């Protein structure tokens, strides 16, 4: 490889990586956490009564139907969530149409049902795991469109960093397993390589698929030129890309017996090995009224969406979608499913989570390398101050994001249940915690920031199960007794992450105590050219 090519790609890798590094770290961390959005949702809504033993689905359906009839008799769309592996509770949802007279907007409503009592339960107003997940492409405090564009731009730079990184890594196979600890800059480079090269298939997949998922917005001019401009045309285009190849068959059910119950029974008979997770009644009361059934499915990348039951020619017909109609749409679908990982069972989901963290580590170590390379004594005084500020903000962001997530969970438990805009305030707490970490890093002595923040993060995570115990009726022991696996899993995970941070804090403190008297070059403002040459 020509030396000038390697040099130019080195420059590109450094600057493409650095320019949006903090945003990319934010995207990686919130997206990674988003793989467990349903599980986090459960913890953030502790009032939900969890269903763990095999309840009679028909009974649940009856209760749900009765409640929907009572609460939303005029709604054109009804949905009932049956207990599933990631969502072990019963939920009803309905669409409320806009009503000019009563001044109600078009909106979706949901209610959780306690099947022990058959009544709906009041759940605290919370942003939930879903908001954490959505932040990784919507960002926050900016209009949705700007969030999409910024995220896409960051992702494009990520792709460029990945490709240039591969190009400049001379010994990519020779140094595959290489990590040489305690060698300063060399060790940091080794760790950056390990975080980047080992999960490289995942990084390439997640980055490229991320770009694809937003391409309807970023590359919309292609649609404008070749299909048509404006919202209507774009919506038409989107619907056409989503066209599935469908398979229809008529079944032996009398049309007047078609109801939620009969649909449930029929689907259960046909798919004995699968669990129904969601059932919907769409276009209620119209000619096009039909039922949809979704399954709890974790064994194949292609998410077969649903079974549709409708009356056609005075007979009942089932329609299944097999896959997308267009071949390009199939490729897009594959990337979309790989990115979202909805098909993953619990083990694969934890692996997705691990890879996301490795990606965040890749970005973080990259930023640290950039800063370390700049901290040469040959820099002018002004530059050294700037680099010192960047270094501090860097630590504030790297540890600030885990602190912000913990702050989000703390806010969920501590904010009073009936304040206005509770959801907004939960998210504000996230960003307040992040800003506080950055602020702390800007004013603390540079030698102490890592250790201090690591200990703080450890404490803030370890105390979460205690907070749970104090503020709700849930705790680790009661979760085991009630078989509330999601609540238990969350509490135990928080302790696990807390312990990881404790380990990191101990390692950092032992490193600090080993070298107390070595003056860091960055703390040194060289007044003359006789500055030390020692690295």
């Amino acid at each position, binding site marked *: 490889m020509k030396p*000038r*090519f390697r*040099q*130019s*790609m*080195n*420059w*590109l890798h*450094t600057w*493409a990586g650095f320019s949006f590094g903090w945003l990319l770290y934010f995207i990686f961390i919130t997206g990674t956490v988003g793989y467990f959005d349903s599980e986090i949702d459960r913890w953030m809504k502790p009032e939900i009564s969890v269903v763990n033993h095999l309840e009679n689905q028909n009974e649940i359906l009856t209760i749900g139907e009765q409640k929907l009839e009572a609460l939303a008799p005029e709604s054109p769309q009804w949905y009932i969530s049956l207990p599933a592996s990631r969502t072990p509770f019963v939920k009803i949802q309905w669409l409320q149409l806009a009503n000019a007279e009563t001044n109600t907007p078009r909106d979706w409503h949901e209610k959780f049902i306690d099947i022990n009592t058959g009544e709906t339960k009041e759940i605290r107003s919370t942003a939930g795991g879903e908001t954490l997940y959505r932040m990784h492409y919507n960002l926050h405090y900016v209009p949705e469109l700007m969030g999409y564009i910024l995220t896409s731009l960051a992702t*494009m730079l990520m*792709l*460029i960093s990945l*490709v*240039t990184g591969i190009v400049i890594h001379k010994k990519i196979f020779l140094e595959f397993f290489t990590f040489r600890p305690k060698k300063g800059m060399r060790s940091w480079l080794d760790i950056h390589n390990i975080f980047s090269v080992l999960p490289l298939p995942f990084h390439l997949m997640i980055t*490229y698929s991320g*770009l*694809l998922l937003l*391409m*309807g917005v970023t*590359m919309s*001019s*292609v*649609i404008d*030129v*070749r*299909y048509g401009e404006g919202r209507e045309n774009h919506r038409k*285009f989107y619907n*056409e*890309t989503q066209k599935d190849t469908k398979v229809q068959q008529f079944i032996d059910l009398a049309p007047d017996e078609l109801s939620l119950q009969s649909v449930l029974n029929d689907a259960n008979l046909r798919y004995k090995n699968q669990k129904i997770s969601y059932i919907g009644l769409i276009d209620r009361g119209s000619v096009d009224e039909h039922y949809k059934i979704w399954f709890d499915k974790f064994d194949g990348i292609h998410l077969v969406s649903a079974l549709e039951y409708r009356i056609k020619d005075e007979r009942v017909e089932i329609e299944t979608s097999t896959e997308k109609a*267009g*071949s*390009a*749409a199939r*490729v*897009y679908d594959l990337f979309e499913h790989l990115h979202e990982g909805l098909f993953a069972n619990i083990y694969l989901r934890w692996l997705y989570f691990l890879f996301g963290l490795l990606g965040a580590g890749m970005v973080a170590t990259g930023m640290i390398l950039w800063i370390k390379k700049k901290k040469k004594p040959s820099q002018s005084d002004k530059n050294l101050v700037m680099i010192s500020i960047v270094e501090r903000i860097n630590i504030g962001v790297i540890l600030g994001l885990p602190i912000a997530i913990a702050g989000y969970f703390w806010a969920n438990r501590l904010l009073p249940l009936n304040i206005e805009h509770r959801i907004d305030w939960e998210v504000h707490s996230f960003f307040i915690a992040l800003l506080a970490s950055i602020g702390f890093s800007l004013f603390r002595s540079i030698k102490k920031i890592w250790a201090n923040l690591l200990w703080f993060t450890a404490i803030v995570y370890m105390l979460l199960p205690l907070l749970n115990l104090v503020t709700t009726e849930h705790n680790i022991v009661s979760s085991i007794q009630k078989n509330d696996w999601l609540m238990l899993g969350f509490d135990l995970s928080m302790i696990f992450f807390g312990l990881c941070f404790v380990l990191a804090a101990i390692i950092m403190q032992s490193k600090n105590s080993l070298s107390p008297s070595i003056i860091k070059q960055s703390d040194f403002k060289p007044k003359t050219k006789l500055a030390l040459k020692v690295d």
Partner: protein
Amino acid sequence: MTFFKNKANSISIIARVLIALIGGFLLANFVAIIISYLPADNVVDGIVTGMMISFIVYTLVVMAVFHTKTAMKAGMWVGSCCIAAYGVMIYIDMVINA
């Protein structure tokens, strides 16, 4: 960072960034539109294919822009590719709609 050293280069860097960002985006869009003409019967599929490939084009263009010896050369390359792609686009459009 021995590649870009002195102050005079900052104009060159800014130029390259603009050429890469804007020129690359233009070229990626043109190539996407050209690719969308490929499947004869299914324009929707063609558009999706074009959009998916455009990101690879964008990456390659950005890498090329930062590799050329001077920013001027980068500008000329990207500029002429854009004009060529635009020409191909117009030509295909004329042929299809004839």
